[in-house]
């Protein structure tokens, strides 16, 4: 092996001998200066009867070098300039012949017009929305079938999913809700102190956490944690043809993979929401005591007076809807994977973005409905 970085390659025109002297390493590493050298040479008028291309000083030639040598010859041919190639070893000669056989005609990339690309992109989105709707419908049909025929349920997969997406999420959801309770309590406390209305912190913290923030917070964290995991798992299984293998064995992938995830999510997320409620209110209580001097006892005593069961239930009933969004979007995007690794990454990202987007849209719709019916 020669060290290919040592010497660059050269092409030199010696006018009085009508010779082109080629030297150095005509390899992929040494050939960088050649491109320019050949271009410059071609703009020059050579003005001789026959050009002698002297290859004796070429130390190494690989296919890149042979390609450039061939290009040089082609240039000369186009100018109807006769030439002789001398000093090329047999091995290099056969390489040149091999390269010469590979005529490359670059194909211009087909690029659609702007308007048609806009149309295609729009249609792709509409199509995806329709497919998501169809997938949701299919999920419901199979879910009901499984509920009425419980032996069709994959209990092991269900419990494993409850553990992974529910129990394992407890620490992070607990911590973040607690901190959120502190943040809300602090902001509310500063304002309430101005009016001497310290005790109203109970209403503020409890109602915001229970009705809005806990369900939303839990759902967003779970979407990031588990929705992405669903998409990545199903996507990888699709790439490795595991899902096709399941079909051929006679297992419906929907029953084996999707339904346990949807059911596990429907069980876990409401429970996680209750947990987030508790920790969030606890955070508010800590700030109420340290900042506003309200005892835990007084805080607790006021909760039943101001927080109705309806407020609590309104928050909890959002959770199953969010759960459905997370599980269905995650599985749907996972099953849309086609091709390889990059597709898995793309669909996983889409699954999280889409799930969080839909969660917030759903929450807004809830708010509109609740204000419409006055609760």
């Amino acid at each position: 092996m020669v060290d290919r970085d040592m010497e660059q390659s050269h092409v030199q025109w010696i006018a009085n001998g009508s010779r082109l002297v080629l030297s150095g390493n005509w390899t992929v590493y040494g050939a960088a200066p050649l491109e320019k050298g050949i271009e410059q040479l071609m703009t020059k008028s050579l003005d001789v009867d026959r050009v002698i291309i002297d290859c004796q000083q070429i130390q190494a030639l690989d296919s890149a070098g042979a390609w450039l040598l061939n290009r040089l010859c082609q240039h000369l041919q186009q100018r109807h300039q006769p030439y002789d190639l001398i000093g090329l070893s047999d091995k290099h000669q056969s390489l040149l012949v091999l390269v010469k056989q590979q005529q490359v005609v670059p194909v211009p990339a087909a690029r659609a017009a702007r308007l048609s690309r806009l149309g295609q992109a729009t249609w792709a989105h509409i199509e995806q929305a329709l497919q998501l709707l169809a997938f949701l419908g299919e999920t419901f049909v199979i879910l009901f079938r499984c509920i009425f025929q419980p032996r069709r349920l994959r209990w092991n997969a269900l419990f494993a999913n409850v553990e992974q997406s529910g129990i394992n999420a407890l620490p992070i959801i607990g911590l973040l809700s607690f901190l959120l309770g502190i943040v809300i309590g602090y902001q509310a406390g500063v304002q309430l102190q101005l009016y001497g209305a310290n005790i109203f912190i109970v209403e503020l913290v409890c109602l915001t956490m229970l009705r809005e923030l806990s369900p939303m917070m839990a759902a967003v964290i779970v979407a990031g944690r588990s929705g992405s995991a669903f998409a990545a798992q199903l996507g990888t299984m699709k790439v490795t043809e595991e899902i096709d293998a399941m079909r051929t064995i006679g297992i419906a992938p929907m029953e084996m993979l999707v339904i346990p995830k949807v059911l596990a999510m429907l069980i876990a997320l409401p429970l996680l929401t209750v947990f987030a409620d508790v920790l969030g209110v606890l955070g508010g209580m800590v700030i109420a005591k340290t900042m506003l001097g309200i005892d835990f006892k007084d805080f607790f005593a006021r909760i039943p007076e101001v927080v109705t069961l309806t407020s609590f239930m309104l928050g909890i009933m959002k959770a199953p809807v969010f759960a459905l969004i997370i599980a269905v979007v995650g599985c749907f995007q996972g099953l849309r994977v086609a091709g390889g690794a990059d597709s898995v990454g793309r669909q996983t990202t889409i699954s999280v973005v889409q799930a969080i987007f839909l969660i917030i849209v759903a929450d807004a719709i809830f708010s509109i409905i609740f204000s419409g019916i006055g609760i």
Partner: protein
Amino acid sequence: MTGQSDDAVNKQVMIQVRGLITRFGHETIHDGIDLDIFKGEIIGLVGGSGSGKSTLLRALTMLLQPSGGSIKIGPHELIGIDEASASELRRHMGVMFQQGALFSSLTVLQNVCVPLKEHTQLSIQLIQQLGLMKLKLVGLTEQAADKYPKHLSGGMIKRVAVARALALDPDILFLDEPSAGLDPISAHALDELILQLREALGLTVIIVTHDIDSLWRLTDRVAFLGEKRLLAVADLKTLSQHHHPLIHEYFQGPRGRAAQVN
């Protein structure tokens, strides 16, 4: 391509393996392997499943650090090699993986151009032309250049993988099961291609394969791995008459004999 005369080249040792030991945990894969691979030859690595062919290939391509022994490529010792020398040495090697291992986010042409973009200072136009030339060299058309790997057939993927392995005109080409999963016509065409490339580019080729037809067509010598060691290295004709029970079984089984007749 060092420009030496052919006679000297024929005897030059390209890769020297001495006392190679590979272990995964308590499981020993190789227990003292000695092998010389000469410049310009096509050598086959064969053996039953689990005999450590692919592991040996991974050790030779520096994807795995063996537990003991020595591997020399040219003057460089691979055991305990530093990252800079390894990277330099890798430019002289092309590896084709069993499943192709094409980058799925890149088109065929971009896949072939990756090594050229990383390691050379050539202009992007020239790189693309060289990439297209390599694709033509392995028998693909310009139409395939803009396709993504997911749209290719198995045979095309293997061809693109060979083109990518050849991008930098390596001295050594490693092929892991090149003909596995190919139809007989594509497999034959790939064999022809490898022979043609060896002739034109002076490659040293190391092939792991189960395809006995390919072994007969391609290899100058074949190394047989078994019982954690190298049982024999010889040209296929000699090897197929070898008396060791494992080798005998391998080549004198019904399929081995059928290939021999052809």
